[in-house]
């Protein structure tokens, strides 16, 4: 009556599925665990925070609880100038730390030991916040990037860094990537140049260690638009990005990208309300040849989603 008469068959299903899971899950996990994080991987993980997308710290998926990436040109303690400027990742008190800080195994064995012995990342305190940066060490004649807890090693506190820098140096990278996810940009754009031919146009494919600690990786699979992994190397104009997001047809007449004007919010940089209806009407007139120029695109306010999105693109996608 029951499954007893099918012992062999039931065991067979379990055995075969177990075998294929051994090959496709267990064995690759050794490869994944041994992946050593590159500078790109460290930068992504530290600038994205714990996790992008819906989470405890960000229940409305507005990019809350994310660190701020600061482009630092001067050491606020010693006054030493950095040329080129360095990136520091500011976690205000209470901001959850990146996966590579919470679970250093994500860094890969060598980077983990460097980050703990030299970088002191085991001495973090969530209640006080922390400032991280990426430093380099020499291991057997090769240069390795590792995470440095600058709050311990250099005395940089979140307040010190944020107060000694101005808003143009603050990059809302984690929040910007949240916008990329919630607005579904990745349904058309990929973040994975293919290993075969497309690196000539879209840049080099990612290395094994470029994803450590990143969540989610949003490779994308259905490409209806250019790959974006290195888009800021091809085009680094904030102005162009702004026009393109407000209405892609302003800079690329044949684009099928949606308009993202709603990311501007209600007011522009000067606090004046944005009249979207008027803008669209004037744009339609321009399209029909009734105006010589399209209407001006409003400058976005500093706390908007569009600012964060452009920050992410120009900072992270190089």
């Amino acid at each position: 009556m029951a499954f007893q008469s099918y012992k062999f068959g039931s065991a067979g299903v379990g055995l075969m599925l177990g075998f294929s899971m051994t090959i496709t899950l267990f064995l690759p996990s050794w490869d994944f665990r041994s992946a050593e994080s590159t500078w790109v991987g460290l930068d992504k993980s530290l600038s994205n925070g714990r996790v992008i997308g819906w989470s405890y710290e960000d229940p409305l998926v507005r990019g809350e609880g994310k660190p701020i990436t600061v482009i630092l040109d001067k050491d606020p303690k010693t006054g030493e100038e950095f040329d080129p400027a360095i990136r520091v990742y500011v976690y205000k008190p209470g901001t959850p730390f990146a996966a590579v800080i919470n679970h250093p195994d994500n860094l890969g064995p060598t980077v983990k030991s460097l980050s703990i012995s030299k970088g002191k990342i085991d001495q973090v305190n969530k209640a006080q916040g922390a400032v991280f940066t990426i430093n380099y060490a020499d291991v057997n004649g090769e240069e390795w990037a590792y995470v440095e807890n600058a709050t311990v090693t250099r005395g940089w506190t979140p307040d010190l860094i944020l107060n000694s820098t101005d808003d143009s140096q603050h990059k809302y990278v984690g929040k910007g990537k949240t916008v990329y996810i919630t607005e579904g940009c990745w349904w058309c754009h990929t973040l994975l140049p293919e290993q075969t031919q497309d690196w000539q146009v879209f840049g080099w494919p990612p290395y094994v260690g470029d994803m450590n600690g990143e969540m989610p990786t949003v490779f994308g699979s259905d490409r209806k638009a250019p790959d974006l992994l290195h888009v800021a190397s091809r085009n680094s104009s904030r102005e162009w990005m702004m026009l393109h997001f407000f209405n892609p047809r302003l800079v690329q007449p044949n684009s099928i990208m949606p308009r993202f004007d709603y990311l501007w919010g209600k007011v522009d940089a000067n606090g004046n309300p944005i009249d979207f209806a008027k803008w669209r009407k004037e744009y339609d007139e321009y399209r029909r040849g009734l105006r010589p120029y399209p209407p001006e695109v409003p400058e976005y306010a500093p706390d908007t989603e569009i600012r964060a999105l452009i920050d992410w693109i120009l900072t992270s996608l190089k």
Partner: protein
Amino acid sequence: MLFKYLMAKNEDIPPGTATIYFGFSSIFWFIIGTGLGSFNAAKLAFPDFVTGTELFAFGHMRQVHVLAVILGWISMAFAMTMMYMTPALGNTKLWSEKLGLWTAFLWNVGLSLGLFLLWLGFTSGREYSDLIWPIDLVIMFGVLVPLGINVWMTIAHRRTQGIYITNWFFGACIFMVWVVFLVGQSAELFNLTGLTEGYLTFWFAHNVLGLWITPVAAAIAYYTIPKLTGNPLYSHRIGHLHFWAIIAFYSTPASHHLLSAPLPEWLKSFASVEGVLILIPAIAFVANILLTMKGRWSMFVENVEIKFSVTGVLLAIPLNMQGGFQQTRAINWYVHGTGWIVAHAHLALLGMSSFLEIAAVYFGLQQMLRRKLYSLALANFHYWFVIIGFCIYWISMTIAGLIQGAGKIYEVPYIDVVVAEHPYMIARWIGGTMVFTGNLVWLYNMYMTAVEGTVVPKGRYAHELAYER
């Protein structure tokens, strides 16, 4: 009807209630899914169609289309067929009609909530696993677990000696989809990051197709074709070749979706080789079904359920020929990430799988309602709109994909590819809209069947009766 029986005693619920509720729910979700598909396609053809609002932006709608079709239409149609085929094949009653109704109820509530949140932008950012993990848990424990218990207990309480191939598939596939779902979502539940997350995303995406959507659809055909034609299945043994080949080979090729990602090369090569082996179960399945049709090919013209079923089986031929080879490195570099893959995905879900389920939903609803289909003309309208719409979609997207592939290797500026694809985007929208229109007619036809269809006498099958309209 539903709310009356949710609190009733199991014995008081008429057999077939869960089937009927699942059946109409699945048609409803099919309409939502294809309607969203049509809407999204319009936006790809005409980017300023409904513009400037966050909620109707393409990026907020696309994933809702995909999950409405997979979790709403296809999976609910599976549950519907399990509710009536499993007991019928065991010569028994469904183990718990009440549990079936509760599953359907929780499924509709959970999926509506999940898709609504997804629409608003509450997402995990993982393809096919977009739903946030609390909703994942609702689907796992409110839907897949009770469905599995119901099916297994029905099989365990069967009054036949053997287990027919369809029930083998049902029982095993539910077990496998539990494993696949939990492992796939573990990245969100346990914050697994990096390459592990990227791989698990596509491990889930592949296996939910390979171990749930296509094998269960095939299992349905193993029931509907012999049942409707009156011929016994050509070979139960070939059916088991299909079953064991799926379990052994098709549970492994997940990484062929990520051939251009920095995964271990041995894993990608292994996946590609295993992926070609899909041809074994595919040929076994198609041959078995087509040989079962022997002597009854006139039904392909006369009987609408057979028409849908056999079309689905025939579409499995190009599906597996494409699927087996396009995932090898030799071909994948050209078509990866292009419209070709979109066409292939629709060939699997809208072509092969949906056609088999449509037939089973037609058949099951008539059986359980004890009513003959209201109108053959409307059913034929449905068939031709779905098949022509699908073909327009498939052909146009395949061409668009080949253009995109050529653009990729010849380093054509991307915007020129967009321009070249424009006519095919319009064709895709027309095709998708035809499918949507056909489904609206279907819902009307099934509703009229429920209220006005000829009553089927006890001991007879609906398809044995003549149409009155």
